[in-house]
Structures are given as structure tokens and as C-alpha cells.
């Protein structure tokens, strides 16, 4: 085959390279730059090597935030994924109920994150919030401002309210793509409801579930806005997740070097965990 070699064609790629440079590479390199230097103000920087990284990895504070964040992501996934599947299974497949359900499901996803936070912040308040006031009137000692457990419950319920829809919509898309013949065959074969779920619906939802779990994991692991608006990371540090901690470090304490090192570590962890999820889930059920 005859090919025309023209190296000037590489210039065509230039706009993309420039865009990616400005949107990703340069900001990231700035962070890398901060993470290996120290400053005492005055715009004077000193080489710090891996000191910041060692500091972050050695600090109890970082690992505590990490543990809280992992716990949060784990709980959120454990609730949202099964709940999302359950709701999707019970949504109507035809008739007027379909658009109604879809719109209802999409609503929470359309609300800006800080608005979600504000809604729940007010909703849960003991003095004027419907939830907080009602809970206390019914005899529950509920106060997310002072009780860590209540704060956690609030943040988790808020996340479930906000994001289960995403899992529902993805699963629903997977479910409606199953041809009728599968259900008919299952009825002919005398399969139980559970067997239909286990052998037809779940395998067909496999791929969308993978996407749902990945998205929900990454989002919940990077969660910032909503808990920040509701609890501000408190009471104490009990709802201080990694990104809240990071912002405290960078802006609250203006500890740029340590914050930059933490950002890089954080980024690598998200990358690593996503890769692990992806690899595990794409290999589930595959032949050796």
C-alpha cells in the first residue's frame, strides 16, 4: 500500500495539545511544583524534595480523613447500588408511568450540589427544619450539629437522596434493553423471580452497573460541596472527608506544599482504586 508521509500533519493535533495543556497538564504540574517546594512567604521558594509527601503519609490526620472517606464511600455504595437496582426493577416498562418516573428520577440530579446541601442543611435543622423539628417532636434526640452519628446519617441520607437516581437510570437503561424473548423463555423454563434476576437481569445489567459503581465511587470519594454546606466537616472532624480536609489545609491553613502533596496522593489513590474496580468488574464472570 502506498502511503503519503507528511509530518506537517502533526500540526493538526496542536489545538488539542494546547487545550489539554491548559486544562490539565499545566494545573497539574503547578501542583507538582508546589508539592516539592517550601515557602516562608515573600514569594521565595526552597526545594523540599519528598518532605511534604512524607509528612502527609505520616500524619494521623490524613489517614483519619481517608478512613472516614472510605467508610462514607462504602456505605453510600452499599445503599445506593442495591436500592437503585431495586427501584429500576420496579419501574414501569410502558405506559404513562414511564415518563413520570423518569422525570421524578432525574429531578435530584438536576439540582446544583450546593443547593442540595442547603436544602438538607435547612431540612435537618432542629429549630426550623421539617426533619429536625419533626424528629425531635417525635422523641428522637436528633441534632446533626452536635451529634457525630446524626451528622453521618444526615450526610449519607442526603447523598442517597441525591445520587440513587443515577444508579436507577443506568440500571433502567440496562433493563429495558433486554429483549422480551428472554423473559418469555424464562417463563417457559419455569424460572423463579429470583432466577430471572440472577440469570437474566443481573448479567444484562453488568456493564451499566460497572459504570454506576465507578461513577458513584469516584464522586463519593471526592465529595466536597454537600457535606461542607451541611456540616462544614463537623461536629469536630467527624465528617471531614479528604477534600474538605484538603481545602482546610490549603486555604484555611495556607499550607500550600503539604496540600499540594496531599492532592497528588489523593489523585493517585482515586486513579488506583478506579483501576482496581474496573479490572475486577470487567473480569467478573469472564472465562479464564
Amino acid at each position, binding site marked *: 500500500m502506498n502511503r503519503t508521509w507528511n509530518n506537517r500533519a502533526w500540526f493538526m493535533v496542536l489545538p488539542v495539545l494546547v487545550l489539554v495543556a491548559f486544562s490539565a497538564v499545566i494545573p497539574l504540574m503547578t501542583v507538582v511544583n508546589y508539592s516539592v517546594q517550601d515557602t516562608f512567604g515573600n514569594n521565595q521558594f526552597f526545594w523540599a524534595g519528598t518532605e511534604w509527601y512524607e509528612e502527609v503519609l505520616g500524619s494521623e490526620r490524613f489517614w483519619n480523613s481517608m478512613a472516614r472517606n472510605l467508610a462514607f464511600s462504602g456505605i453510600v455504595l452499599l445503599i445506593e447500588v442495591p436500592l437503585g437496582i431495586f427501584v429500576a426493577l420496579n419501574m414501569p416498562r410502558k405506559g404513562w408511568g414511564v415518563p413520570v418516573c423518569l422525570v421524578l428520577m432525574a429531578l435530584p440530579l438536576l439540582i446544583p450540589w450546593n443547593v442540595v446541601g442547603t436544602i438538607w442543611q435547612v431540612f435537618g435543622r432542629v429549630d426550623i427544619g421539617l426533619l429536625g423539628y419533626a424528629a425531635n417532636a417525635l422523641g428522637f434526640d436528633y441534632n446533626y450539629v452536635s451529634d457525630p452519628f446524626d451528622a453521618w446519617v444526615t450526610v449519607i441520607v442526603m447523598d442517597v437522596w441525591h445520587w440513587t437516581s443515577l444508579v436507577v437510570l443506568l440500571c433502567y437503561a440496562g433493563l429495558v434493553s433486554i*429483549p422480551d*424473548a*428472554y423473559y*418469555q*423463555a424464562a*417463563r*417457559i*423454563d*419455569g*424460572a*423463579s423471580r429470583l*432466577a430471572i434476576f440472577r*440469570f*437474566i437481569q443481573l*448479567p444484562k445489567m453488568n456493564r451499566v452497573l460497572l459504570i454506576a459503581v465507578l461513577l458513584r465511587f469516584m464522586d463519593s470519594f471526592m465529595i466536597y460541596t454537600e457535606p461542607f454546606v451541611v456540616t462544614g466537616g463537623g461536629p469536630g472532624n467527624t465528617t471531614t472527608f479528604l477534600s474538605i480536609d484538603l481545602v482546610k489545609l490549603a486555604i484555611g491553613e495556607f499550607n500550600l506544599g503539604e496540600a499540594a502533596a496531599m492532592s497528588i496522593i489523593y489523585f493517585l489513590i482515586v486513579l488506583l482504586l478506579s483501576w482496581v474496580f474496573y479490572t475486577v468488574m470487567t473480569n467478573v*464472570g469472564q*472465562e479464564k
Partner: protein
Amino acid sequence: MAQIELDHIRHAYGPAPKSDKDYALKEVHHTFRDGGAYALLGPSGCGKTTLLNIISGLLHASDGRLLFDGQDVSQLSTQERNIAQVFQFPVVYDTMTVYDNLAFPLRNRGVAEPEVDRKVREILEMIDLGDWAKRKARGLTADQKQKISLGRGLVRSDVNAILFDEPLTVIDPHMKWVLRSQLKQLHRRFGHTMVYVTHDQTEALTFADDVVVMYEGEVVQIGTPDELFARPRHTFVGYFIGSPGMNVLPVSVEGARAKFGDAWIELPDRPRGPMGGAIELGIRPEFVQLARSDGMPAEIVKVEDIGRHKIVRARIQNHAISAILREDEEVPAEPRVYFAPEAISIYAGSWRVDYEGEREGVPA
């Protein structure tokens, strides 16, 4: 195994059907003999799958009753009816092995494991997938998957009937032939009542003892392949069965003669009136003779030599007609067309009219 009785079954997909047009399946009243092999033959959208799904219980008919061995099963679910059905496109349980796929219908019904194993091995042998038993069903080709679907349909021996909905569509031609003869063999061995839906006349005629021809939601004729060939009850049966299909010409009838244009055609007897609707004459190409002497003058359009015989496309009085000639027969230069009288059928409003000396559908 059971005798299946369709008692005035009708079905409409929409709610509140008013006229005949609203029915996807117009009234069917027929009995499938216990142990019979039937084919439902017809073009796409003629209601054959609807009828099949009504028998299996995937659909519940709008009107009428369905009886298995005299018992009304109209309201029973698919599971309770104990029917096996194979669909047009392969349905396999991806995450299971081939073996487990075949065992699935048995295990769901609580069959003991040694019995499951015996049956599954037998079926694996039959569909020639023995070496694949332990493999996941996911990676198989379309026709292997369809063989599994077929196998799942055949694995239960206690079913009331086995229904096939164009099961060989995705299978390659050679395998089609093999599977079809295996089905036939199986039918002889176990004597299941089998109903086979297809739009392929060869498939229907080779598989079935009795062929049910459907057209626009209606059963137009039920009969043996010979009957369908010799005496199509409806012009559609004439067109649809046979290759090429029956010649249909507009005529008028006077006594025992039919007038086509300005020519007279002899009939075997007087058609028994009254005759409503358009009157047509039907004759199969096999019985159209081309001769030099008597008959209607014809103009040859094309001769297709297809090996064992020739198909002659001709025109008489500006009307297309086909004739089948033996390989060694010559096509005359200025041919005349002659119809063998005993092979002529007369149709009124597309339905066959019996002759005077004939009982319904039976030659004199």
C-alpha cells in the same frame, strides 16, 4: 403429551376490538391431535406467532377457550401449562455453562440430579455440543446458541407440547437440514405434540403431517402437503405453496365452462353456486401444458431452466402465466396453452368453490 383444542379462539392486541380488522388472530377453531406434528405456515404478520403464544400461555386470548386433553387451560400460566417453546432468536443464559443451560428447565421443576444428568447428556449428544458442556454459553456462535435453545425445549420429556417459532432462521443451511431431520426423528421416537411455525414452505412440508396455512390473521386451510398442493382452498394457499405459485386468472363461469377473455376453458364439472365476489380460475403451473395444436395462443416471455425442469413464463391475452415443463420437453415456436380440466379450481371471492359431484374439499 396432549391433544390441544382451540375452541373459537380470537385475539386482539388492542383493547375493545370492534370489527374483524381489530383482531390480529381471527377466529380459529381447530384441534391438534395428540402426538401430531403440525406446521403453522404463513407470511410475516399473519398471526402465526400470536397463535403459538396463545397455546403456550405467553398471551391470553381475548375470546375462546383452550383445552389440553379436554381440560380448560385458558387461564393457566405458562408454567402450569407445561409447554416447551423455542424462539426465533437464540435465548441462552450467558453466565451459565452449556450444561447448566440445558439443565435449567429441569432443575427449576425439581427433577432429581441423576435424572437431570441423564437427560442433559442425551440432549448434548443430539445437538452435538458434548465437548462444550463445561464452557460458558457466552462465547458461542449464533447457531450454537440456537442449538442450546432448541435443546432446552427438548430436554423435558413430560411436556404437553413443544412449540417452535421459526427456530431455524439463524442456522446455516446444512445444519438446518440436520436439525430438522433430528426433530422429525425425535417426534417419531417420543411422539410429542409438536407445532412448528415457519414461513418457509419446504420446512413446513417436510416437517409436518398437517400444515395449517394462515393469512391475515385467519386459518385459510388445514391439510396434508398433498391436499394443499392439489386443492388449495384459498388463492393465497395457491400462491404461497408451490414454486412458482398457482396461476390465477379472472374468469366468468357458465355451466361447466369458464370464459377467460374470449376463450372458453373446460371445467371438470359445474361449480356449485352461489358464487359471490370476483370469480377466478386457479391452475398450478405443473398442469399447464404447452402444445402446438389446441388451446389458447400464448406468447413466451422467458424460459428458466432450473435443472430437473423448465419454468416457462408466458402471456395469454395479456395475462402472465407460468408453466412447468420437463427438462426434455421442447418449448414450441407458436405455442398454445391448455389446462388439464381435473386440475382446475374455481374461486369466488378468493375461496374455492366445490364442483357439483364433490363433497367439501374431497374430489369426486
